[in-house]
């Protein structure tokens, strides 16, 4: 029985073959889920079965294998659309990852809509993948790039947003959940304000779609981007969701086979959505694996996953804050996602991550692709633990013990 808070991580772990591994003789505690997530047997087998039984190229062949493969690929698209409550499957474009999705919008929508003197709004907490494409776009088009600022707590300062929305804003690109701070931004509210000011919105959902229920119609975002590998799916496949009228008006980024209706010697007529944006042979098996991941997550329940992570995050915050010389970055536990970045006095995160690795605990060290965020907080590199449905309180305990051991071992001051 799966109620809101009734998720059994220990039972779920059995679904993930890699979690049975030992690292340096210790059981693996995989706490790097914001970077990428592990795969359940169902996904691994879906890939394997597809290659063993149904594989062929898609959309063009009339033979049985091609029909089966095409059906499987398009069924995966339908699953994604249903998962995010997109009104139509053809508004779901398969790309390589979140980064590619954002670059596609910057290229195909940005260059045809942004003019010199326009304003593009991002925030101080963005991942580099939702920042660099807009820096380039601003440089190329002569638009101005402005930043919504953060509060000391690591939330977005909505007063700053309102001020910046006064100008000629064409686009607001922001993250739903910060991959460093765990902050959950009030996306619906921000999108509404942006629309009132006449701007379009791209939502970076890389850290939200895998962890909580997300409804693109309720949010009313114009574009949304996320990756399969961060939600128990394979690498090499991600999603750009877009409102149909926007996608229909956008030129493709890549051209070639698979995205045309007719080709002549001097010009071609593009295909309809979604094929227009899926030139060449796509990641077919990966799409099928992605569909299996969505099935798995739906079965576990996104509400249950979200409740479980919030509980772990609250516990981790509580335990880390009790540890002397440890500073946790970001807002308090209430409503925060399962991402916890922290700094340990006079211990470099590389060394902390190394020591934790010897205890079998996997965390991340560095800037987590968010250098401006770290600069805002006056921070050097940080350590980051991030949780998912298969993590346990016991693993949080091992994390904290590892921090304490490292402090004892490496507590030299320079």
């Amino acid at each position: 029985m799966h109620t809101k808070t009734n998720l059994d991580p220990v039972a779920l772990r059995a679904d993930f073959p890699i979690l049975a591994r030992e690292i340096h003789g210790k059981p693996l505690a995989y706490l790097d889920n914001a970077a990428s997530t592990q795969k359940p047997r169902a996904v691994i087998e879906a890939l394997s079965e597809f290659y063993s039984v149904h594989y062929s190229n898609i959309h063009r062949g009339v033979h049985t294998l091609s029909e089966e493969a095409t059906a499987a690929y398009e069924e995966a698209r339908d699953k994604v659309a249903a998962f995010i409550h997109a009104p139509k499957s053809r508004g779901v474009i398969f790309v390589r990852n979140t980064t590619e999705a954002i670059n596609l919008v910057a290229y195909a929508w940005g260059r045809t809509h942004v003019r010199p003197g326009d304003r593009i709004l991002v925030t101080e907490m963005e991942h580099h993948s939702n920042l660099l494409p807009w820096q380039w776009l601003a440089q190329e088009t002569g638009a101005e790039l402005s930043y919504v600022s953060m509060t000391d707590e690591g939330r977005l300062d909505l007063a700053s947003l309102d001020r910046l929305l006064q100008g000629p804003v064409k686009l607001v690109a922001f993250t739903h959940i910060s991959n460093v701070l765990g902050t959950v931004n009030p996306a619906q509210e921000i999108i509404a304000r942006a629309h009132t000011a006449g701007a379009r919105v791209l939502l970076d959902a890389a850290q939200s779609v895998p962890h909580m229920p997300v409804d693109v119609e309720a949010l009313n975002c114009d574009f949304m981007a996320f990756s399969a590998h961060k939600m128990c799916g394979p690498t090499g496949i991600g999603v750009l969701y877009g409102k149909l009228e926007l996608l229909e008006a956008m030129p493709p980024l890549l051209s070639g086979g698979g995205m045309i209706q007719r080709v002549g010697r001097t010009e071609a007529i593009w295909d309809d959505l979604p094929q227009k944006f899926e030139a060449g042979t796509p990641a077919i098996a990966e799409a099928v694996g992605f569909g299996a991941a969505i099935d798995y997550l739906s079965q576990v329940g996104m509400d249950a996953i979200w409740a479980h992570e919030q509980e772990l995050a609250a516990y981790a915050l509580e335990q880390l804050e009790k540890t002397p010389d440890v500073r946790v970055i970001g807002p308090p536990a209430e409503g925060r996602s399962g991402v916890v970045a922290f700094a340990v006095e006079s211990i470099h995160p590389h060394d902390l991550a190394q020591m934790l690795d010897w205890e079998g605990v996997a965390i991340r060290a560095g800037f987590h692709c968010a250098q401006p965020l770290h600069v805002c907080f006056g921070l050097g590199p940080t350590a980051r633990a991030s949780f998912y449905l298969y993590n346990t309180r016991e693993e949080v305990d091992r994390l904290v013990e590892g921090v304490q051991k490292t402090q004892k071992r490496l507590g030299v001051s320079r």
Partner: protein
Amino acid sequence: MGDDLYREHILDHYGHPRNEGTLEDADISNEQSNPLCSDVVRLDIRLKDGRVDEARFTGEGCVISMASASMFTEAIQGKTVEELKALQDEDMFKMLGVTLGPVRAKCGLLPLRVLQKGLAHWEET
């Protein structure tokens, strides 16, 4: 807890760095940061008769990158420019005396990269 990386000599160099500082009249000077995020090493080298006369480093970073930089300034004392140019990644690992995985290797190799960039720049000018 694993002692592989944090041997006595590594922690010693980290806690008591040798040749820390800068040189006003450096012949070779360069600063690089680690692609694995955030470690920064600057090397200043003064040459005399074609050999390293004095070498200093400054920087900020993890135990491996800082210990490596400190050990490096000692290791290159008296070396000719040709000998500096001939230094390979292997030499750094031997110097450190520990095994580094491919990701962490970047921390240990950082001082060598700084030297290599510094040498290239010095040759141009």
